[in-house]
């Protein structure tokens, strides 16, 4: 399938359009709520919620006998909620720390969910058609238009709530105790935020699956954080990244045979994280590497200038030239002596003499004098 065809289908093919829209919606919602989860250092909570949702889906199916997504997802939401409640009460009432509590709850719920799923497949004849397995790794192709409409409505409500309580949620995330001291009900706001996170996760279960859904909570937010230092922009970017990952992942998996949707979407999101970690200004690795290199370069030039200055002082002659061998010995293992000298020469601070000797220029002598004799000036401390 070529790109033009793919784009054409994206807008006019019912299945593809539905899948792309649904995946975009899930990306926007999980990206938004994921930003709060990441900033509240609750990235793992998403993992626990999504895994805890599995038994909810199975129980909902057993109770209602229905494979309608809404019924199953309500079951998922309730189970996800119970999971977080359990995590909280384990942390509060025992000496177990929250990372361990999350791990335990995640494993117990997920294991129970798998047991129920196996039972359902063995004992209930309609189960194969019910396709509960798709909740493990997600199946975007199974999305129907009415699912997308449900997602849009729920997602809209979630976003409106985030907008309405914008300043309260920001304050809660940044400084919980200060929020409490001002009279904001931090417990209730916690519950609101956790509930919204549960909803965001449950919305994505059909498409991405319980195993990998937490990546959609963490990845877009982690990527977005690299690019900006403002909360509003971070959340906007996070939602955008989520949507991009959703659409690209869904398109890829629908245009290549046997490519599962959930993992593909998650791989797209991870690619965005990778790109952000490498290339984002200020926080990106490349940026940091470049800055360190520049610093080292500056330090080398300073040190070289200082060596030349020391020699000039010793000989009481600002332009007394020394062989590069001497300068290399003075550098004591600091590499790139010739390069530094050439750079200094370019700046008009040093001068080359035949055969291979170097000295300061009068200007270089002045600069060195200023820099190294005044202990307060920048550069003196770098030697």
């Amino acid at each position: 399938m070529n790109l033009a065809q793919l784009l054409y289908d994206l807008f006019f093919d019912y299945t593809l359009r539905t899948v792309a829209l649904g995946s975009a919606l899930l990306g926007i919602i999980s990206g938004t709520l994921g930003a709060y989860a990441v900033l509240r250092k609750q990235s793992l909570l998403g993992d626990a919620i999504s895994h805890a949702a599995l038994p909810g889906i199975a129980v909902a199916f057993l109770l209602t006998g229905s494979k309608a997504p809404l019924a199953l997802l309500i079951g998922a939401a309730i189970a996800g909620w119970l999971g977080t409640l359990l995590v909280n009460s384990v942390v509060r009432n025992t000496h177990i720390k929250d990372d361990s509590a999350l791990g335990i709850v995640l494993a117990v719920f997920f294991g129970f969910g798998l047991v129920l799923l196996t039972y359902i497949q063995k004992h209930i004849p309609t189960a194969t058609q019910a396709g509960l397995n798709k909740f493990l790794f997600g199946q975007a192709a199974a999305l129907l238009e009415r699912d997308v409409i449900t997602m849009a409505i729920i997602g809209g409500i979630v976003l409106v709530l985030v907008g309405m309580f914008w300043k309260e949620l920001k304050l809660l995330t940044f400084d919980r105790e200060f929020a409490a001291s001002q009279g904001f009900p931090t417990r209730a706001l916690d519950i609101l935020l956790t509930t919204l996170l549960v909803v965001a996760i449950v919305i994505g279960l059909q498409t991405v699956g319980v195993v990998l859904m937490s990546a959609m909570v963490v990845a877009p937010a982690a990527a977005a954080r690299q690019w900006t230092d403002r909360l509003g922009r971070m959340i906007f970017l996070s939602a955008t990244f989520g949507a991009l990952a959703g659409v690209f992942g869904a398109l890829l998996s629908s245009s290549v045979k046997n490519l599962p949707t959930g993992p593909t979407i998650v791989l797209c999101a991870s690619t965005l994280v990778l790109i952000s970690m490498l290339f984002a200004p200020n926080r990106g690795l490349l940026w940091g590497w470049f800055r360190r290199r520049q610093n080292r370069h500056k330090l080398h030039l300073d040190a070289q200038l200082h060596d030349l200055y020391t020699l000039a002082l010793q000989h009481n002659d600002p332009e007394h030239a020394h062989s590069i061998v001497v300068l290399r010995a003075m550098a004591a293992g600091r590499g790139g002596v010739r390069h530094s000298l050439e750079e200094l020469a370019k700046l008009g601070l040093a001068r080359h003499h035949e055969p291979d000797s170097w000295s300061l220029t009068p200007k270089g002598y002045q600069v060195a004098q200023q820099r190294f004799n005044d202990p307060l000036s920048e550069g003196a401390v770098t030697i």
Partner: protein
Amino acid sequence: MSHSQIAAIEVTDLTVAYREKPVLWDIDLQVPSGVLMAIVGPNGAGKTTLMKAILGLVPPAAGQILINNRPYAEQRKLVGYVPQRGSVDWDFPTNVLDVVMMGRYGALGWLRRPGKRERDLAFEALEKVGMRDFADRQISQLSGGQQQRVFLARALVQDAQIYFMDEPFQGVDATTERAIVALLQELRAAGKTVVVVHHDLQTVPEYFDWVTLLNVRRIASGPVEEVFTEANLRLAYGGRVAFLNPPTEHSKPIVGAEPSHTANISTSTRPSEVAS
């Protein structure tokens, strides 16, 4: 110094326990309006917990707390709070001005967004703590002292009557320390009550006029010149206090507390003998 008759803060029989361990035991406290009060005591004495219990952030096991004669919940608007600087993540994606404006959120109430008035107030407060030029600065780029001043500015925009500050002098540079002291004096001149969890015993007589000595129980509370005595300090710190100057009859005791100090003063007949 003039203190009005109603207590700004009145704590009765306050007990706080974490699990079974009591952190504060049967605390009674009366802080008159308009004083600068230091809460001092050794590590683990419950200083921060006392402050948080008064602010309703820690549930008390027993006891009653009144602010200007009424329960705290009704008097929130009168109270400003400066938490410990280390209690938040300074890598949070926001800038200085935004953090300071957070001090207005309580007064704004639900749904209303901060606007021009809040910005103006925030700039005014930043001016007072000498941080106006940093308004647009991302908060992760601040030094410890600057972070502290941002927190103070945030409390200032609360426009409170009673301020609670948890270790504002902790790990700040000399400039910031002077700025905070100036601010405290300004607040006192404006008739505010300020309660400060404080670590440096040496500066207590200089910075404060009221002091509470705490070590799980209330050891003493009152005007500095009356209760900030060698005997009370020894009660609070269990003898691990190094006296720098032998206290005389007229001079206030000048002391330095050294929690890790091993010399046990109570074994010595005269405290001045172990002076360092």
